[in-house]
């Protein structure tokens, strides 16, 4: 059941604007890796490349599953989801006119997830009890924090081996960010998930990081092999902790 993601020398952009300049990162089985960086440094673009939403102009993205090495280049988002990679997108992107339950059921669209639908639905409703009471409510009518819960729960419904999370803290009150990060940590431990999370809120992200990367202007500026190394780094201190 080993899953691994390896990104090598990735370059990507939008039209004439180059966003990523030779980024190499890896995520090993069972790890949670954080990608730190402020707005506009390429975190989301990197995750979009992995999901096949933005085509890379150079570089390689490989997904290893039980010893099988799969090249993700040229694959569509739905094919990549089908391999067992799920993204909680920036801005959540729920189906606003569908109920919470319909959103969650759509999460289990891929065939491997349908088989475990009942079990996974019970699991996410147990982790997010607030959603159980709001199953019939339209997703678009919920608060930002609740929508973020639905987005994470929906991604889990697809039975992913690797979960990518794009800026879960955006638009949430600090106390909700706290709770959300704690939930992602809980999910990771209970499900033995492999997580790659892009985040600009260093103090929150560090809580679930086994290790991480700092991305500045589309390049990896620092690789921290442990949470302690990330905390101790000068640049982190300067830019994120203000010490």
């Amino acid at each position, binding site marked *: 059941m080993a899953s691994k993601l390896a990104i090598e020398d990735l370059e990507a952009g939008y039209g004439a604007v180059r966003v990523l300049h030779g980024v190499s990162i890896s995520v090993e089985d069972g790890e949670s890796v954080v990608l730190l960086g402020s707005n506009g440094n390429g975190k989301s673009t990197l995750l979009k490349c992995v999901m096949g939403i933005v085509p890379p102009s150079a570089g390689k993205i490989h997904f290893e599953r039980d010893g099988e090495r799969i090249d993700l280049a040229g694959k*569509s988002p739905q094919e990549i989801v089908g391999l067992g990679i799920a993204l909680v997108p920036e801005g959540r992107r*729920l189906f606003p006119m569908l109920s919470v339950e319909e959103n969650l059921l*759509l999460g289990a669209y891929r065939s491997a997830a349908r088989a475990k639908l009942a079990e996974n639905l019970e699991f996410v409703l147990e982790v997010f009890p607030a959603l159980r009471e709001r199953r019939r409510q339209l997703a678009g009518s919920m608060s930002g924090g609740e929508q973020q819960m639905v987005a994470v729960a929906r991604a889990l419904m697809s039975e992913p081996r690797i979960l990518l999370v794009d800026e879960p803290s955006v638009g949430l009150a600090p106390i909700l960010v706290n709770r959300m990060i704690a939930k992602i940590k809980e999910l990771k431990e209970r499900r033995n998930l492999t997580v790659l999370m892009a985040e600009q809120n260093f103090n929150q992200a560090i809580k679930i990081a086994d290790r991480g990367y700092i991305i500045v202007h589309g390049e990896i500026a620092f690789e921290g092999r442990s949470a302690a190394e990330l905390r101790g780094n000068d640049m982190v201190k300067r830019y994120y902790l203000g010490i």
Partner: protein
Amino acid sequence: MFSADLLANAVVAGILLGGFYAAVAIGLAIVFGQLDIVNIAHPAFIIVGAYIAYILNSRFGFDPVLVGLLAAPAFFVVGALIYRVYFLAFERTGQESLSGLAFFFGVMFIIEVVLILIYGVDYRLVQADYIGQSWRIGFVDFPFRMLVPFAVATALTAVIYTFMSHTFMGRAIQAVAQDRLALQLMGADPVRIKQWAFGLGIATAAIAGSLLIVIGPVEPSVGRLYIGRAFAIVVLGGMGSISGMFIAALILGIVESMVSTFAGPSWSPAVAFGLLALTLALRPAGLFGRR
């Protein structure tokens, strides 16, 4: 002029007519309501369905409604192919709003002209034992040529409603216009989903067409009378809500029937556009709209 039996007959006739309108509008509730594709040619496909029922009925004596049900899978395939063309020519390049409308306008004219070239402009009708019979309860008439379409349309609505709310494909069809990328992130292919939905919408036209020709004689251009009605029903029902569409169809049927009884039949075509204008002015989301 006004009397209880006239009123009761007008209401019952309206409900039966409204049920048939649901069969006319349900394909558009999927294609226009869910996918946002302005398929103005939908009533033309209904006329094709009516002619297929006519041909097989007059040649082999098949029951027209049975022909409609059997033709539905073929219509599904045709619909899926037409969506393919529409997607490749317009949607992929982002030109669907105006060019797409012109495309379906063209499809409508081609269907009409082909039917006229082959069968002329004469009215065609079908034979079946139940056409011409009726029940009479008290002073209210239940003609079978209206009752059968009502029953079939109600069953069709129930089947589509169940499909939309209880299957993965149905839920994906509801989601595809809301956020295409998010649907891809669920592992679904949006083009395939839309192709399915469009095929399903056209498949209902085969059934609606057979009901149309059971109700009365059909000639190639009568489809035009249903364009305004079908779009008015979908908007009044709340764009894509199947249950809302059914209620809206009944409302249109009842109001049309009352207007035609008490103000004269020549007023009834104005009802649909009147309802459409009122809906857009007072409640743009429709009666049961989620948006």
